């Protein structure tokens, strides 16, 4: 199984955290180690200075025993391993290790090289020097080599051990073990590593939680919803009010599903209309011949019977109802035979204003005010003028029928520059519809007008607008009026029919 995004991210974060924290800790560790050693050197200098000061009085009076005593007592302290004093010739005159007294060290010995460079031609450095070295016991030592300078009191001392022309008389070497420091450094290193480890774990954990909350959980929701949609079912909109990319993804998904639902409804509707159309044409064709028989035979009965025939009324009913069947069949066929739109560039303003003019004269519009407020700069649409007029007439007439006591029919338009569709909004202040009625209003044979019509008007309108590549939506509630929104594609060619 491939790594999940979360795993990959955590691995990457851990890797870079280790690198980053490791390098930083390494530098910090080095810095502190150097600082501690500097500190030790400083302490070593002070110690050697103090020893030199303590020895001075004995040196002046050449009290060798006193000097030996001081050196050995300093050298026997736990913090100091060895104190020894060399003369200029490299002979150890005094040492805390009595055995090596009066032995001569090679000038190429490590301690001597501090001042006497490898190259013997160079004059020695007559300043305090230090070195770090590993002793035979494998312990790190700090070695301080402190030169003892000649001064007046030295050559004027009663022992006359030194002459006035000498500058350096010898040097004091103090060797201090760094075991304590090493221990501290080890502890510091351990702390650093532990801290780094804790930081890496914390960062990974936080990353994991963030990745989970910000990415994995919402992605899982989208994946789940997508799978469901892929499997042919609809899901509830995914909730998530975030404004980030994930929020945008969720929003885009919801919008996509909404659009898909709309187009699926349209497809179902088209299918319904098409099959109803085919069925209607077939039924109408088959039913015409029997209806012809019923109609003419009933009429013949009427013609042949005496006017006071008790069955006359029945014959009249048969005739009247057959005529009604004839009308139904004809309307059905009108519906089943929607002509392909003859697409031209249509000025929708013109179509609507014409429709308004036509209906205004009808009796049912006596109590209705039509308030058509259409943008002057509406672009032309692609469409069949006659069919579009049929749609708008139908919607306007419906609006008036929804307001038996009169009211206002508002017709408005909406189009922003660049929009591929224009909207025409037709609303009434009428009875409105229940949500159940609303679901069915575009279906053939559905009517809210109680059998006074055959319920084909909106179906036909729907079919026409769909063939135009547009859509009709309805917003309604009982007693809150009804608003139809018709969307039609803008004509990009900008050509006008019949100039």
């Amino acid at each position: 199984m491939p790594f999940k995004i979360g795993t990959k991210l955590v691995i990457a974060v851990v890797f870079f955290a280790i690198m980053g924290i490791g390098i930083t800790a390494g530098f910090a560790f080095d810095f502190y180690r150097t600082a501690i050693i500097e500190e030790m050197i400083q302490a070593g200098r002070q110690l050697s200075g103090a020893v030199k000061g303590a020895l001075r009085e004995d040196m002046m009076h050449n009290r060798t025993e006193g000097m030996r005593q001081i050196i050995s007592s300093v050298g026997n302290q736990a913090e100091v391993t060895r104190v020894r004093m060399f003369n200029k010739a490299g002979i150890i005159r005094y040492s805390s290790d009595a055995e090596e007294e009066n032995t001569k060290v090679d000038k190429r010995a490590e301690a001597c090289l501090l001042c006497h460079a490898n190259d013997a031609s160079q004059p020695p450095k007559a300043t305090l020097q230090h070195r770090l070295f590993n002793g035979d016991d494998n312990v790190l030592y700090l070695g301080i080599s402190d030169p003892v300078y000649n001064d007046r009191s030295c050559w004027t001392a009663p022992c006359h051990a030194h002459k006035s022309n000498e500058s350096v008389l010898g040097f004091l070497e103090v060797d201090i073990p760094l075991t304590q420091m090493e221990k501290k450094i080890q502890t510091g290193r351990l702390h650093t590593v532990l801290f780094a480890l804790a930081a890496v774990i914390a960062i990974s954990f936080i990353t994991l939680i963030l990745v989970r909350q910000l990415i994995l959980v919402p992605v899982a929701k989208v994946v789940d919803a997508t799978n469901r949609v892929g499997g042919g079912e609809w899901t509830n909109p995914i909730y998530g009010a975030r404004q980030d990319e994930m929020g945008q993804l969720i929003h885009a998904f919801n919008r996509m599903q909404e659009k898909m639902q709309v187009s699926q409804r349209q497809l179902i509707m088209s299918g319904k209309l098409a099959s109803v159309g085919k069925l209607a044409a077939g039924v109408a064709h088959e039913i015409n011949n029997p209806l012809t028989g019923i109609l003419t035979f009933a009429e013949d009965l009427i013609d042949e019977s005496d006017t006071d025939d008790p069955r006359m009324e029945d014959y009249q009913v048969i005739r009247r109802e057959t005529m009604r069947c004839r009308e139904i069949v004809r309307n059905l066929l009108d519906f089943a035979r929607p002509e392909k739109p003859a697409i031209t560039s249509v000025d929708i303003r013109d179509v609507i204003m014409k429709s308004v003019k036509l209906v205004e004269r009808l009796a049912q519009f006596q109590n209705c005010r039509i308030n058509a407020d259409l943008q002057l700069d509406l672009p032309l649409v692609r469409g069949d003028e006659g069919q579009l007029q049929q749609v708008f007439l139908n919607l306007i007439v419906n609006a008036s029928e929804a307001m038996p006591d009169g009211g206002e029919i508002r017709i408005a338009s909406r189009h922003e520059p660049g929009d591929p569709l224009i909207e025409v909004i037709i609303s009434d202040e009428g009875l409105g519809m229940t949500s159940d009625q609303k679901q069915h209003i575009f279906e053939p044979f559905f009517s809210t007008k109680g059998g006074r019509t055959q319920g084909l008007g909106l179906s036909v309108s729907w079919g026409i607008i769909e063939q135009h590549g547009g859509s009709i939506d309805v917003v309604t509630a009982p007693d809150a009026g009804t608003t139809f929104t018709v969307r039609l594609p803008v004509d990009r060619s900008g050509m006008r029919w019949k100039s």
Partner: protein
Amino acid sequence: MAERAKILVVDDEDVVLLSIRKVFKSDAFELDTVQSPQLGLAMVESRNYDVVITDLMMPGMNGLEFLDKVRAMDPGVRVIMITGYATMRTALQSMRRGAFDFLAKPFTKEELSNVVHRAMQRGSMTEEPADASLAGASESAGALEPGRTYTLRNHSWARIEPDMRVVIGVEPHYLSTVGDVSDLELPKPGEGVSQGGGCAKLFTADGRTYSLWCPLSGRVLTLNTEVMENPARLTEKSRDLWLIKIDPTAIEHEIENLL
């Protein structure tokens, strides 16, 4: 007693033949009914009919073909096409090709007897010749010329006005077959009319009511009050006397069904 009208009815549906028999059962008519177009042609060849009533959709031969053959055999016979409402376009085409009239099923006794009555009127007015060039001779939408008159042959005419609206009137030949018009019923402004559907009712002195087929679909804009007030003026048979003015809605398609 006047000579009996000789009528041949061709329809593959028994009930339609029976119905038509009911309508023309009086002694004034001599009715033959056959159920196949082939038999119908044989009858036309052997007898001299005044009127042939034929279904537009029959097995073996379509109504238009049958119409052509009948008219080739006997140019004087008036052929009435019975059509399902769904085949309006074919019905209109049959008018172009010389049918006297058409009737949509289911029809009433009155509608059938009226159309036959008209067919029996051999007035002095000659028919407008049928379009012999036939199929495919349709006008393109670009040929729509203001001022030009198009006709639903022998029925109604439509003239395109300079503002691209259309005025509609009754063909002189139609008027010569209905007799004196005593009254007129027209659709109301705002109502729709469709090609091949009724767009006027003509009431005649002999008590009959004729339905005039509309040459084009559209919305009624205005009525000609001049004719409304004095329907008798229709007898002038002038093509200046229009009945209704419409805003055509599908003229580009429908014009090909007219002459």
